[in-house]
């Protein structure tokens, strides 16, 4: 049962990755290209900023002709590889989360559980971290601080996931005492307060400088859109597939060992 769900989760994740790549290619790539153009057309600033980083970590970052991977490859095969691999991995983890939640936290039918879980996971894993540390196009952010920015981003992401897990467990217990609706609302509210307080306490990253606001907006909405497409596809496709697995079992004569082995 778990094996089947895992395989289907990864399949749904792959499909989600494909659709998200298509979205990212048409909506995201234009602003990435504009940003790379800006990065290259500012040689003085770029030189200084690369030189600074070059001394610090010997990291050469090139988008132009000297780049190791050409722009054409980056924006097609590279983009697809990255997004599809992300979808695959997230799909596997999603299947496990679904198996843990289904029948324990709620008793909705599988496709509804899947859709709600995907919506919740999107908020916890993508939206909340994004609101504090939004996506940056190339040319935004100095290479010197990449270590700090990565650490902050993942720390906040981990904190958000941790708060969500605590909220789900607490919400389940509250729902037993107060009823499903008040218990669920209290858990959601608790999660939001915890995350908002941590966001207010964590340091601010402000490195946008004089990057054009329109390009920044297009890039960030495209980036968020890519994730919306990915998680929506994952939740709906996995729900459809999981519903089929869980329905396939003969209801009355369900012999547990035979179904599992």
């Amino acid at each position, binding site marked *: 049962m778990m094996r089947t769900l895992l395989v289907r989760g990864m399949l749904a994740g792959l499909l989600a990755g494909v659709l998200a790549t298509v979205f990212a290619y048409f909506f995201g790539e234009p602003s990435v290209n504009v940003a790379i153009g800006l990065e290259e057309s500012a040689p003085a600033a770029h030189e200084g900023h690369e030189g600074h980083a070059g001394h610090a970590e010997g990291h050469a970052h090139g988008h132009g002709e000297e780049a190791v991977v050409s722009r054409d*490859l980056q924006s097609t095969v590279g983009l697809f590889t*990255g997004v599809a691999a992300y979808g695959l991995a997230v799909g596997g983890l999603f299947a496990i989360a679904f198996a843990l939640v289904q*029948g324990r936290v709620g008793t909705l039918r599988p496709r509804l559980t899947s859709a709600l879980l995907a919506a919740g996971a999107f908020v916890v894993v*993508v939206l909340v971290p994004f609101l504090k540390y939004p*996506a940056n196009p190339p040319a935004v952010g100095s290479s010197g601080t990449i270590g700090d920015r990565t650490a902050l981003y*993942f720390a906040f992401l981990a904190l958000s996931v941790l708060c969500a897990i605590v909220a789900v467990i607490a919400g389940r217990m509250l729902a037993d005492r107060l009823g499903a609706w008040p218990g669920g609302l209290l858990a959601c509210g608790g999660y939001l307060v915890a995350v908002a307080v941590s966001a207010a306490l964590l340091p601010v990253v402000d490195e946008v400088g004089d990057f054009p606001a329109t390009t920044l907006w297009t890039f960030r909405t495209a980036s968020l859109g890519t994730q919306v497409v990915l998680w929506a596809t994952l939740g709906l496709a996995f729900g459809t597939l999981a519903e089929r697995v869980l329905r396939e079992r003969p209801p009355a004569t369900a012999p547990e060992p035979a179904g599992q082995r």
Partner: protein
Amino acid sequence: MSQPTIAAPHPVQIRIPLREIVPWAIFAGILSLVVLFFVTTEAGAVELLSTGGLVHEFLHDGRHLLAFPCH
């Protein structure tokens, strides 16, 4: 395992036993985290393989558009 056997229009309420989930969760969890590390972070803030930033360059656009700190 006393599964309620209701002949309702709903699908059977299934709760997959924890001991069936855990081994798969560990296996898929570790594998996924390795994949996610390579997609999101390798050769950005940390570099495990000395590829001279090749991984970063190749996955550059995906990393930016999935909202991870890239460079």
